[in-house]
């Protein structure tokens, strides 16, 4: 007589999969819902365009937004050319199994797993002290550039590798040099992949706190130059929630703004991957 445990066991995987998916979706909705509930009533044009008062309890976050913008700009200005150049070198001038390429890739993989606080300490030692930049937007941006480069390079390299080899053969058969093929044919074709890498890096940089605590500092005044200390959005949230009693309301509102930006960036990546990348690479 067959053993009967009383319920249909074939349903277990289905229940587990649906249960897991529902749990994740529920967590996300709860998380965003809570942010909206706490932050949305205070989010206003005035909040975005006025100075921070009373250690951030009152007023807005205009200097924080400007500082964040400057830090991200420094990060991108440094990371983009280095990221594109290294990715092009890895994809076009090294083989996947070559010693040099393998060494760089292994190093990038290790670097991308390093906790951001270590990057913060490294940035503090190198940029703030050795190079004498002190706690500044420049130090913060440069540290973030070091942090996002591994991710940016690997995504961009994959973008280059996704370009059909036929284009390389065709350009070579026309007597075009490798440099010219790279600049005129491969870079435009790999551009969508590069842009996806840039946006993901931007998202990671925007959400970063630990690396900036030691480098760009806490000052919530409007920065006047890149050598001024500046407070990023994530640090503002951290400071208001941990160090400023009564700062929760503005912390929630800032967090809502930050999460909103990150969701928009993720949406942009999804759209780019679905449309532009596939179209450029001729994927149906």
């Amino acid at each position: 007589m067959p053993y009967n445990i009383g319920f249909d066991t074939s349903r277990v995987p289905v229940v587990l999969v649906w249960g897991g998916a529902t749990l994740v979706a529920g967590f996300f909705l709860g998380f965003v819902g809570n942010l909206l509930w706490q932050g949305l009533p205070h989010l206003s044009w005035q909040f975005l365009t006025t100075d921070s008062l009373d250690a951030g309890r009152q007023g807005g976050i205009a200097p924080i937004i400007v500082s964040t913008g400057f830090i991200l700009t420094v990060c991108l200005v440094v990371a983009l050319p280095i990221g594109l150049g290294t990715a092009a070198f890895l994809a076009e001038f090294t083989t996947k199994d070559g010693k040099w390429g393998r060494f760089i890739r292994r190093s990038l993989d290790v670097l991308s797993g390093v906790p951001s606080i270590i990057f913060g300490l490294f940035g503090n030692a190198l940029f703030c002290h050795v190079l004498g930049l002190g706690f500044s937007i420049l130090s913060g941006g440069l540290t973030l550039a070091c942090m996002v480069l591994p991710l940016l390079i690997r995504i961009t390299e994959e973008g280059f590798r996704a370009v059909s080899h036929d284009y390389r053969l065709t350009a070579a058969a026309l007597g075009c040099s490798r440099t010219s093929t790279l600049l005129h044919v491969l870079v435009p074709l790999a551009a969508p992949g590069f842009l996806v890498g840039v946006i993901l890096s931007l998202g990671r940089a925007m959400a970063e706190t630990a690396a900036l605590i030691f480098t760009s500092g806490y000052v919530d005044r409007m920065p006047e130059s890149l050598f001024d200390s500046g407070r990023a959005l994530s640090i503002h949230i951290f400071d208001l929630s941990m160090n400023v009693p009564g700062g929760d309301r503005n912390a929630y509102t800032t967090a809502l703004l930050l999460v909103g930006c990150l969701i928009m960036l993720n949406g942009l990546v999804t759209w780019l991957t679905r449309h532009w990348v596939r179209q450029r690479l001729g994927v149906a």
Partner: protein
Amino acid sequence: MNPSSALNREPFLGLSSQKEMGITPCITAEQLTLTYGERAAFQNVSITIPRGAITAIVGPSGSGKTSFLMCVNRLTDLLSSCRVSGRLLVEGEDILSKEMDVLHLRQRVGMIFQKPNPFPFSIRKNLEFPLKEHGVKNPEAINGRIHQALTDVGLWQEVKNRLDAPAQTLSGGQQQRLCLARALVLSPTILLLDEPCSALDPLSSGVIEDLVLSFRGRYTVVMVTHNLAQARRLADCVGVFWYHHDGGHLIEHGPVRQIFESPRDPLTVSYINGRKG
């Protein structure tokens, strides 16, 4: 393909007749061998390809036909672990020598691939890009050469009003003609065609075949094809590659009539009769 153009043509002279008539060889391979690591793609190939003629390279897959073609413009340089030995003269010049200017060689030796592969640019930029690469900067000269190349492949009338449209909007046959124009715009003397019709419908194939026929005498054409009927229709000379256990070999070559009507090698006989390959 216009049948009359193929059937009514005079066969190109045989190799012995070429010498008698003073016709110069264009490509000469002597004991040419290509290996990928330990594996030989083809071995000890010796062949003379006459100037201005259409030479078809036929044979089963894996016998080294495309690899041979890629030696002629040194595209093999791009393939990792690929090594070429022997001698290969193109218009009297040893192209395997280290001093060879490979970029200039590829300007003289155009190549068309199996699948049409225009760059994801406009029609105009597809032709402009290689010209600028080879130092043609004058806009009038560029426009003149674009016009000439597109006219030569019969595409000018079809695209003259949409030169700035993306090349990908053209049909497969038009794209292959654009690729042909892109090679012709550099004024090559030799054209390497690697199964240029295999990805096209019969009508588009016919158009390409007519074009290839029109190239006789103006360009030295070396065409890899799996289509024996096409080789018979178009070629003046035919080389038959065959795969042995130690890699590809050129088992026979000669004028088209000899290969198809009185082949010497038993494998060639089996191949053209459809019993092997």
